[in-house]
């Protein structure tokens, strides 16, 4: 009897382990075409949604890993909040879902023009758009929003959006003139923040921080109106019948907060939610599922290894108060471009992308992603994996293994570096181990440390590190990334040029690229192509992989037409095909 019971217990344990085994990550989904990704995404559907007549009804349920923090567009700094609030608050700029370019479509502006000197932007607003409480959406809302950001009474992470603005003039309720302090082609993006309904706030901005509207916005000019928010659980919104592009077909949208990615996947499969982002390891679980379509697109971010060009024991700012370059105390190893190139050649990018990113990535050559098509230079080739070349570069630079211990030396100093990344990010931890191994093969001694994110940021901004695995996300559709490269952003403790890259030519090109009068892309492009070539040649970063995002959604919904820059741009036209008579 006892033996029987124990066999039963053992059986249960075995079955449970087997089931768990099935849920384990299995490789490998086909990679997205990196070239095609310049503005394009791809959809893989196992079963197509049956076309049918659009009927009103149905509720779309999305899952978010984190709860929104606040539903006020000038106070939020998290994507969970903007992901929900974006359905309520209108903006001056629309974004082409495919190219990411700023367009009037879907926005409050009907058209805009820029003065010849490039300083004054005049926006013509759409007539007849109202908030859901009946008040018109007009120029006063825009001015109020931007004045609020500038106000001392408002604690907002958006202060930099108003730094370039000289003045905002409401010419009439449907015309706004914004004058900038200097020509800055990427400043247009600064004007794209969502607007507050000014008629619901005090004129002196005194209630912005504490208004109950921050938790329960009563007026919407978007596709949906707010209904309720149960913190850390769900946010419910219903159709905005007065939406200016036409009321959505669906009755409402629910955002559920589901922190665990495994649970989100289970909910997508069981039909409890309609959409969630998928991790590379999860793709095989939905492959072949006739109810789920996977949309894949390259996103606007990349991972890289930052190489500190200056001595981490003596961080110095890049320029003095007069803007003159300050000569940096060079990094004892990484200041030599030959060593940096050797690192770039020593990494097996194909293996990294296939094994670490599980195929959800693509090699990039320099700092402008293919998604910014007009500025990207496809002629620049990424560094090839070539150990021989890497070894040769190190030999020529004087790094040789004279004592046969496998580690190169030069002038009695070992080729030894510390590589850091943030603990808990599995991709980066795996990447670090692989980089450590591959650089070890050409005579580096790499001490790889995964440390807590706060400490990482402190060391990064303090510039007290050798090499770091990190990434940029949300780079947007403008190629200007001067904060990473310009000498005046090399400010220990705060600046994003924490690799201490100093190159007067780059400083000049970056400044010229954003101040082209008229901001025509044709005229700006040559500057960015030259910048990409120089960054590629100087190797302040070793570019590892461009980001790819995968989204799984239930395909009983028709009308979904996602682009890499927006999934929900036409949400008001989606309809539930199962409701058709």
């Amino acid at each position: 009897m006892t033996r029987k019971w124990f066999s039963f217990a053992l059986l249960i344990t075995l079955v449970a382990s087997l089931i768990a085994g099935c849920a384990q990550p299995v490789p490998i989904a086909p990679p997205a075409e990196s070239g095609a990704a310049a503005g394009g995404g791809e959809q893989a559907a196992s079963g197509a949604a049956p076309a049918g007549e659009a009927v009103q009804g149905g509720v779309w349920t999305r899952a978010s890993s984190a709860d929104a923090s606040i539903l006020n567009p000038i106070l939020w700094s998290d994507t969970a909040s903007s992901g929900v609030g974006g359905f309520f608050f209108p903006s001056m700029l629309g974004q082409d879902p495919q190219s990411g370019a700023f367009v009037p479509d879907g926005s409050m502006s009907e058209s805009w023009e820029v003065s010849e000197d490039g300083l004054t932007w005049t926006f013509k607003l759409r007539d007849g758009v109202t908030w859901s409480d009946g008040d018109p959406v007009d120029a006063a809302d825009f001015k109020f929003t931007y004045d609020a950001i500038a106000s001392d009474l408002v604690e907002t992470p958006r202060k930099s959006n108003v730094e370039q603005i000289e003045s905002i003039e409401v010419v009439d309720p449907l015309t706004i003139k914004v004058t900038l302090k200097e020509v800055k082609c990427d400043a247009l993006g600064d004007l794209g923040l969502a607007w507050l309904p000014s008629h619901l706030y005090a004129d002196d901005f005194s209630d912005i921080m504490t208004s109950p509207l921050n938790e329960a916005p009563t007026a919407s000019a978007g596709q949906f109106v707010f209904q309720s928010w149960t913190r850390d659980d769900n946010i419910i919104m219903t159709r905005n019948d007065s939406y200016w592009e036409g009321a959505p077909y669906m009755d409402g949208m629910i955002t559920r907060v589901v922190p665990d990615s495994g649970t989100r996947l289970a909910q997508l499969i069981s039909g409890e939610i309609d959409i969630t982002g998928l991790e590379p390891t999860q793709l095989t679980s939905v492959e072949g599922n006739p109810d789920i379509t996977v949309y894949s697109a390259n996103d606007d971010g990349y991972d890289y290894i930052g190489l500190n060009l200056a001595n981490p024991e003596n961080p110095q700012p890049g320029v003095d108060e007069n803007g003159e370059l300050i000569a940096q105390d060079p990094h004892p190893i990484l200041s030599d471009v030959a060593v940096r190139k050797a690192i770039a050649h020593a990494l097996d990018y194909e293996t990294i992308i296939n094994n670490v990113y599980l195929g959800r990535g693509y090699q990039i050559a320099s700092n402008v992603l293919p998604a910014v098509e007009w500025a990207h230079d496809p002629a620049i080739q990424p560094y090839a994996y070539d150990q021989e070349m890497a070894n040769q570069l190190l030999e020529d630079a004087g790094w040789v293994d004279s004592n046969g211990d496998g580690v190169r030396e030069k002038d009695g100093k070992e080729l030894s570096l510390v590589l850091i990344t943030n603990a808990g990010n599995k991709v980066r931890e795996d990447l670090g181990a692989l980089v450590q191994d591959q650089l070890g093969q050409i005579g580096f001694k790499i001490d790889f440390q995964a440390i807590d994110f706060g400490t990482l940021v402190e060391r990064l901004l303090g510039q007290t590190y050798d090499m770091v695995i990190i990434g940029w996300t949300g780079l947007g559709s403008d190629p200007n990334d001067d904060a990473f490269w310009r000498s005046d952003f090399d400010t220990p403790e705060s600046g994003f040029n924490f690799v201490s890259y100093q190159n007067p030519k780059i400083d000049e090109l970056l400044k010229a690229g954003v101040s082209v009068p008229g901001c025509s892309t044709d005229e700006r492009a040559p500057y960015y192509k030259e910048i990409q070539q120089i960054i590629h040649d100087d190797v302040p970063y070793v570019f590892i992989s461009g980001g790819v995002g995968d989204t799984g959604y239930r395909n009983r919904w028709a009308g979904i037409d996602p682009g890499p820059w927006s999934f929900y741009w036409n949400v008001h036209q989606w309809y539930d095909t199962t409701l058709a008579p």
Partner: protein
Amino acid sequence: MTRYIIRRLLQAIPTLIGISILSFILVNAAPGDPITMRTFGDPRMTEEAREILRRQLGLDQPAIVQYFAWMTGLSVRQGDQVAMMTTPGNTCGYIGAINVTVCDGGGGILRGDLGTSIDTKQPVWARIVERMPATLELGITSLLLSLFIGVPLGVLSAVYRGSLFDNLVRFFAVIFRAIPIFWMALILILVFSVVLGWLPTGGRQTVSLTQEFNLGDRIRHIILPAAVLAFGGIAGFSRIMRTETLEVLHTDYIRTAQAKGLSPNNVWFVHAFRNALIPLMTVMGPAIVGVLGGAVVVETIFAWPGMGRLTVNAAFQQDYPVVLGAGMFFAVLTIIGYMLSDIFYAVVDPRVRFD
């Protein structure tokens, strides 16, 4: 007893002050700061803009000034800055003799105000209160499950010591203590939600546009998370009860009861059981406080909106006021929990007296 309670309450004051200092130091010693955390990676966020935010939140001040402001609600700045610092809800005055401006924002721990969340701009107190229903619902359900299953299992296990039943209880107690909670949770979701489709994968209720309360739906949602949480409790309580019951069964008074000719049921369940419960009282106080603290892993996997997720998210986001406020709240609860546990001890065990 009253004198004992008063004495314990008075002792709690320096303890709480100590905890407030210690937690403030720990939070401030953590690398990075809330502003960098929120703006790192946003290349458009200039250093000037970050500095403005730091000043507005008072994070540019020395730690001692920040601590003083957190405790008293009084913020202090050098020089005459009345004009700059006066805001709605903030009264300021300049003290010329020591050249400082003092502003009273009306809050402060000493006035019972736990502060305001950096992210949500809500009072920390409100954030804690809004989590309590979900936290209590899950915590109490799992605690009751643990008690009503674990305690009888432990007693029966002791009474039938060495039997198949006892061996099974001990076997599964070890297994359930050893299995990682997240693994157990995912397996249960896989089996009961995805494969069988009997129970929902997570959340506290089915979310719909109408949001009507439905008891049956609530119960279906709580079964899996409460079961996962209870497994550990059942295992723990059954082991405590087994050990204690065995100990009691070998005492003189039980032998006396048996010698008097009482029925075995009477001996075990009246005499032995009540005395074996005493050590359980010692762990109940902290267990109840633990319930209020929430259960991070289970809340995360089952998307349960409880205290555990609130505090852990706040810590990751470096939302200092929430971390500190929740910390103080738990400090008070823990002190009360242990005090109640001591008092219960005296109530159930006549040998314990407080003088």
